[in-house]
């Protein structure tokens, strides 16, 4: 079970960072920040080694007394950092790898979302830009794009009987993916 998951852009600023609400957020932000140095070290070390190709999964970055921090780098130099509870000894390496793979897939989906501008924060709060959708939209927990007359729209909840619904442009799917990783081990 992850207690904190962060997505860091190649320029080393956070695109997305989320931690379990019961803990002090700042502590995890700091841990992720310090882990970036370790990530950079690992990347440059692997680059210099005479290994044919570098793996995307970086493994355990560093342990603290309560937590372990794992890292993963994509081909586009976007980094994923995951903090897990040390007491969770049941979590094995290949489970962490599969969590990172799912994260990578979800991030790729965000990237392919035409409403997402690369470099923006990945947010799913309804504070972002809205657009009017001239027909009642399907109810669903994840965002999906449907083609329809007038173009693709993000589907979100809407009350029945309303001729127009306000659709925020958001990456709910990514958020839900992260939620599932924080609640249970994949």
């Amino acid at each position, binding site marked *: 079970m992850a207690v904190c998951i962060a997505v860091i852009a190649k320029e080393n600023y956070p695109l997305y960072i989320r931690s379990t609400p019961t803990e002090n957020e700042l502590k995890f932000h700091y841990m992720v920040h310090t882990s970036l140095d370790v990530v950079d070290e690992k990347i440059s070390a692997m680059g210099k080694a005479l290994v044919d190709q570098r*793996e*995307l999964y970086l493994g355990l970055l560093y342990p603290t007394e309560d937590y372990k921090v794992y890292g993963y780098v994509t081909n586009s130099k976007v980094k994923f950092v995951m903090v897990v509870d040390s007491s969770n000894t049941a979590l094995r390496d290949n489970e962490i790898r599969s969590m990172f793979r799912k994260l990578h897939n979800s991030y790729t989906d965000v990237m392919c979302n035409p409403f997402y501008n*690369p470099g923006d924060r990945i947010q799913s709060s309804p504070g972002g830009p809205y657009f009017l959708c001239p027909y009642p939209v399907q109810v669903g927990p994840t965002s999906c794009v449907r083609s329809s007359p007038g173009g693709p729209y993000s589907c979100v909840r809407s009350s029945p009987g309303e001729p127009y619904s306000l659709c925020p442009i958001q990456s709910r799917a990514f958020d839900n993916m992260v939620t599932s990783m924080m609640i249970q081990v994949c």
Partner: protein
Amino acid sequence: GQKMSLSVLESMGFRVGQALGERLPRETLAFREELDVLKFLCKDLWVAVFQKQMDSLRTNHQGTYVLQDNSFPLLLPMASGLQYLEEAPKFLAFTCGLLRGALCTLGIESVVTASVAALPVCKFQVLIPKS
């Protein structure tokens, strides 16, 4: 006029290229050097978009690459030869953006231009400034 529409097409291609640059290299491991990225464009990207590989890749090893496609699918439906030479840029702008976008996601800033001597052969020139 035409310049504006070409740059709009190019920027659309750029955005799509950025997304493809994230999605396509999924299973492959990290790229070692620039040439590997260009090979990826010629093989994986071209196959994914046009169902064929690039016909040739040449470089001067100093940041200039020429990618040549002898039967570019977007130009194939038109009469081969010189008849539609003037119309060709419209069909190439998006693809130039596509290449530039994919390179951008993979960490390479570049300038991509296309040139046609005779349809359907076209050459894409990728210039990567040395920093």
